């Protein structure tokens, strides 16, 4: 009986922690750095969020291109899904650019820029790094990491 009570109590606690962890993960994805900031980890939030923000902004300044499903290029739309998933990792940054039409142009003029591919890489990696930061925030909230 005692074991059962402990189990139930532990399960409820774990359920609460999991809900918080999911919220922290969501916050970390939506706004780079927010997941750690909400947990009081200011330095980690500044470093992780700062790295993602810096990489995303650098990617845009280098003339990089953000991917969505409605590209103008010929070819299979499925090929655009993996880079779009990587770009989506930037959370609100991606949606802000999508809403304002920033970074989605893919004309020949933009592609001719010497830094076009560098910009693409910066934008893709910014999203992927934010996925890592999101998992880190989730693990901290779930008690798996300190």
């Amino acid at each position, binding site marked *: 009986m005692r074991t059962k009570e402990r189990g139930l109590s532990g399960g409820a606690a774990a359920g609460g922690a999991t809900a918080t962890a999911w919220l922290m993960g969501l916050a970390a994805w939506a706004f780079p750095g927010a997941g750690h900031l909400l947990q009081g980890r200011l330095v980690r939030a500044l470093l*992780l969020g700062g790295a993602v923000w810096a990489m995303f902004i650098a990617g845009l300044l280098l003339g990089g291109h953000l991917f969505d499903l409605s590209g103008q290029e010929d070819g299979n739309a499925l090929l655009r899904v993996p880079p779009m998933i990587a770009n989506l990792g930037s959370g609100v940054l991606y949606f802000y650019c999508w809403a304002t039409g920033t970074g989605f142009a893919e004309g020949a003029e933009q592609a001719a820029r010497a830094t076009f591919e560098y910009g693409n890489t*910066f934008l893709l990696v910014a999203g992927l790094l934010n996925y890592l930061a999101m998992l880190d925030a989730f693990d901290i909230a779930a008690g798996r990491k300190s």
Partner: protein
Amino acid sequence: MMISFAALVAVVFGIVGRDTARERALYGLKIFAEFVGIGLALAWLLYFLPL
């Protein structure tokens, strides 16, 4: 550009990949050195290859 890319990636990898501050700093430096070193090595290799 490569240096800034390596530095930003190393910061994130260092923080999420290790647990203590010292381990994070060392791991971040290692990742940074590997990115820069391998990048330079590949650049020289491709320079000599007639592609």
